[in-house]
């Protein structure tokens, strides 16, 4: 059975999340056009694409951005939108937007040269966290305990050829319990939340952090929804920390993984994503 809508799934690899999305689409009678990000070509004038709406599940920030811009150019609605992915995929742009929206976020200073990065670290104070502006899964992040360590890490980053490592995103180290909070928001509504616990300072489940149920918490849910809306809304995972001064939002993820969230909460996130995509397609 086909309900008349064709869902374009733009993806890099099929993880459990993408498989559940495909199953949820099939259960709703949606036809699916699989768009592998290493195979699709994008002419300036659309030809041959069958999709009525595109769900972006590519793990590549660069591929996602160009592809979403093309899909929008073809007149196709996308989840998430280009602007949202552009903002959320860049920690600097995310921090700026969160600050503009009055959402509590860790103190952050950006520097554009290694010399300025040392000054930025002095301004933030030690310990501090140095992150690449683009990238995820806690990769290439560094906790910097003092100036000597800062000089060494910055020298190493400067030696990397990528321009991404010549921009320095310096953030205060938030003394927090050995956990942070991941909140799934879809279409402006709270869906589910977990603690991500780890004895290491990075709590990403991609780095082995473990999930644990969060009791209903109106303040948390309201703040997460506000953060998701501030970056433009859609299917978003908001990461928060419990600082001594209250909750702070440090990241909003535009193509969230939800394997751990689903296992811990039992919420069928894939079904909710597909329902939201259908709702956007009907608009």
């Amino acid at each position, binding site marked *: 059975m086909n309900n008349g809508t064709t869902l374009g799934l733009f*993806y*890099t*690899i*099929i*993880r459990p999340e*993408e*498989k559940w999305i*495909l199953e949820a689409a099939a259960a709703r009678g949606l036809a699916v056009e*699989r768009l*592998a990000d*290493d195979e699709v070509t994008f002419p300036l004038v659309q030809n041959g694409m069958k999709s009525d709406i595109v769900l972006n599940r590519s*793990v*590549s*920030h*660069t591929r996602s951005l160009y592809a979403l811009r093309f899909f929008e150019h073809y007149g196709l609605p996308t989840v998430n939108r280009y602007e949202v992915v552009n903002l959320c*995929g860049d920690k600097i742009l995310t921090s700026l937007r969160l600050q503009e929206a009055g959402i509590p976020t860790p103190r952050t200073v950006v520097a554009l040269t290694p010399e300025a990065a040392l000054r930025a670290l002095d301004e933030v104070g030690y310990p501090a966290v140095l992150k690449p502006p*683009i*990238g*995820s*899964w806690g*990769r290439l992040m560094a906790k910097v305990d003092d100036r000597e360590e800062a000089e060494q890490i910055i020298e190493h980053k400067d030696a990397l050829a*990528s321009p*991404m490592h010549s921009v320095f995103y310096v953030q205060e180290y938030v003394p927090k319990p050995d956990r942070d909070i991941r909140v799934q928001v879809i279409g402006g509504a709270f869906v589910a939340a977990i603690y991500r616990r780890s004895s290491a300072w990075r709590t990403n489940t*991609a780095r082995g952090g473990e999930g644990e149920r969060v009791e209903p918490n109106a303040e948390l849910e309201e703040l997460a929804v506000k953060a998701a809306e501030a970056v433009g809304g859609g299917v978003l*995972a908001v990461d928060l920390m419990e600082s001594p001064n209250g909750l702070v939002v440090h990241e909003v*993820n*535009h*193509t*969230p*993984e939800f394997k751990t969230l689903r296992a811990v909460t039992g919420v069928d996130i894939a079904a909710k994503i597909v329902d939201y995509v259908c709702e956007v397609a009907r608009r």
Partner: protein
Amino acid sequence: MTQCPECEASVQLKDMIEGEIFSCPDCGVELEVSSAQPFAVAVAPKEKEDWGE
């Protein structure tokens, strides 16, 4: 049935779809189903610097 391109262990298609990522049961390397019919696998793409969620 096909072979793991890393360790040549036998690998079977069990409810897997094209593009799906799984670990070789013998050597643990991440594999991708490059074709479901006929069943073929390749080493999964390596994580790149701009990959994430």
